[in-house]
């Protein structure tokens, strides 16, 4: 395919993905807005006032970056996993497979679809958070970079899940039993300084911790970990997941006999 044709194919996949999640906005955009509003109201306002400060900020200010990242992670991941699995389930993925669109374009198209939903939900949650607290912005560059890389990483993770999934249960197992615990234990609601040293060390094995803290650094300027180390880890995960997703696509895992 010529470059111009590749661009059209990529753009078509991206638009198709955006059309999908906006068409079903009550399932994709509304639930995180409601859930996060409840988090802000209950954990931030009601309980947060009794907790006091964390990292030098009010508890509400402290958890907002974590909750934004939680929304981005969950939505990026689930958008790609459910969309790709649905395409497999309905066999509509064959529309792409019979076309000359290169596999890497299929991958990038789906991933950027997930990134778009993740960022859109992140933006909605950020706007909602402004009704509850004031958000400073320490570094716009770090904030945008971290949220973008995180959305890419979890979209790629969702793609791998979508490829392996053979039932709708398989699509929900990873978010429920792996992603949610990692996110809750990834420093969204607390600083790992509060943990005993053993559990601090265990927490350092959780990749979500690095992303939440790097994002919190971009917003508040405080972090439990070195943010450059966090960027390196996220970049490595992206490189490995991209290569692996492409390998699975080339091999036809779950989509070609």
């Amino acid at each position, binding site marked *: 395919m010529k470059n111009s*044709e590749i661009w*059209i194919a990529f753009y*078509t996949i991206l638009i198709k993905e955006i059309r999908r999640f906006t068409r079903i906005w009550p399932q994709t955009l509304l639930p995180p807005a409601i859930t996060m509003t409840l988090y802000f109201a209950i954990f931030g306002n009601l309980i947060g006032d009794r907790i006091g400060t964390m990292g030098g900020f009010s508890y509400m200010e402290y958890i907002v970056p974590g909750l934004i990242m939680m929304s981005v992670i969950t939505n990026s991941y689930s958008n790609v996993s459910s969309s790709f699995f649905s395409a497999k389930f309905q066999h509509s993925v064959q529309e792409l*497979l*019979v*076309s000359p*669109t290169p596999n890497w374009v299929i991958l990038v198209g789906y991933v950027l679809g997930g990134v778009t939903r993740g960022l859109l939900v992140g933006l909605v949650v950020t706007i909602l958070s402004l009704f509850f607290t004031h958000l400073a912005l320490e570094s716009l560059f770090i904030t945008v970079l971290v949220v973008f890389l995180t959305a890419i990483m979890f979209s790629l993770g969702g793609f791998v899940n979508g490829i392996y999934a053979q039932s709708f249960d398989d699509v929900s197992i990873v978010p429920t039993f792996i992603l949610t615990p990692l996110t809750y234990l990834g420093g969204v609601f607390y600083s790992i300084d509060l943990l005993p040293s053993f559990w601090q060390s265990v927490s350092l094995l959780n990749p979500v911790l690095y992303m939440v803290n790097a994002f919190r650094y971009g917003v508040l300027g405080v972090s439990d970990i070195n943010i450059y180390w966090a960027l390196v880890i996220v970049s490595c995960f992206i490189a490995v997941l991209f290569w692996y997703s492409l390998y699975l696509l080339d091999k036809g895992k779950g989509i070609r*006999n």
Partner: protein
Amino acid sequence: MTYAIEISDLKKRYEGGFEALKGIDLKVKKGDFFALLGPNGAGKSTTIGILCSLVNKTSGNVSIFGTDIDKDFAGAKKHLGVVPQEFNFNVFETVFNVVVTQAGFYGISRSVAIKRAEKYLKQLDLWDKKDDQSRMLSGGMKRRLMIARALVHEPDVLILDEPTAGVDIELRRSMWEFIKALNEQGTTIILTTHYLEEAEQLCRNIAIINDGEIVENTSVKALLKTLNQETFILDLDKNIPEGWNLPNYNVVLNQDASSIEVEVVKGQSLNTIFKALDTISVNVISMRNKSNRLEELFVKLTKG
């Protein structure tokens, strides 16, 4: 000579060891109307799957319009349009979006895609449904939608896998008129069907695949010539007199005696039958084959 499809020594062994294709060779000429027939599980869908990259081949070579799929699969795919047996579009998309989106996957600009979608949806009587979600269409409409989608990049070869399965007679006829017109305009058509009269009427050349091997590959005319015997049913204007028979022919009188079944072997003439009936002042009102001729050959070639 460049063929529309050229397959040599194509083998496919699935995980688990089932050998679906045992080294088939097949050539389809450009502009041909070609039938690929075979019983269920013979290897038709595997062959088509390999052509359109839904199945990975184990070994062998495949070229589409002279482009080797191992060297330039993307280039080869541009020549190919596929109408699969099962509905495989996003049922929540509108009819119009299904077609325009497919064009985008082929790198066709949106402005061109919109014009082509309008052209093919109108030709296939789906234009008034363009804004409907595709899940709302009837079975026949869904089949036509898949044809419109397969044509939007204007392929040189159109593969139709059981396109008329479950389609009513009127719609089937209009579908075939459309496909015949496409073929006359130069598009190579490859058809799989279980309605063998369709293959007999429409196709010029034919391959019969059985148990992963091509057991016949010739023109439809040449294949039909190999029939040694045909059974005709003759409807008559009056009953045959009792005791009447026709020497050298096996004649069966039907219960009401106003129609007869006659077996005609190669070398025998139908004129003899007409003359014999004329001598007893019985006229033939109509005549038909007892069973489809191609069907008889098909059964003979595939019954094992």
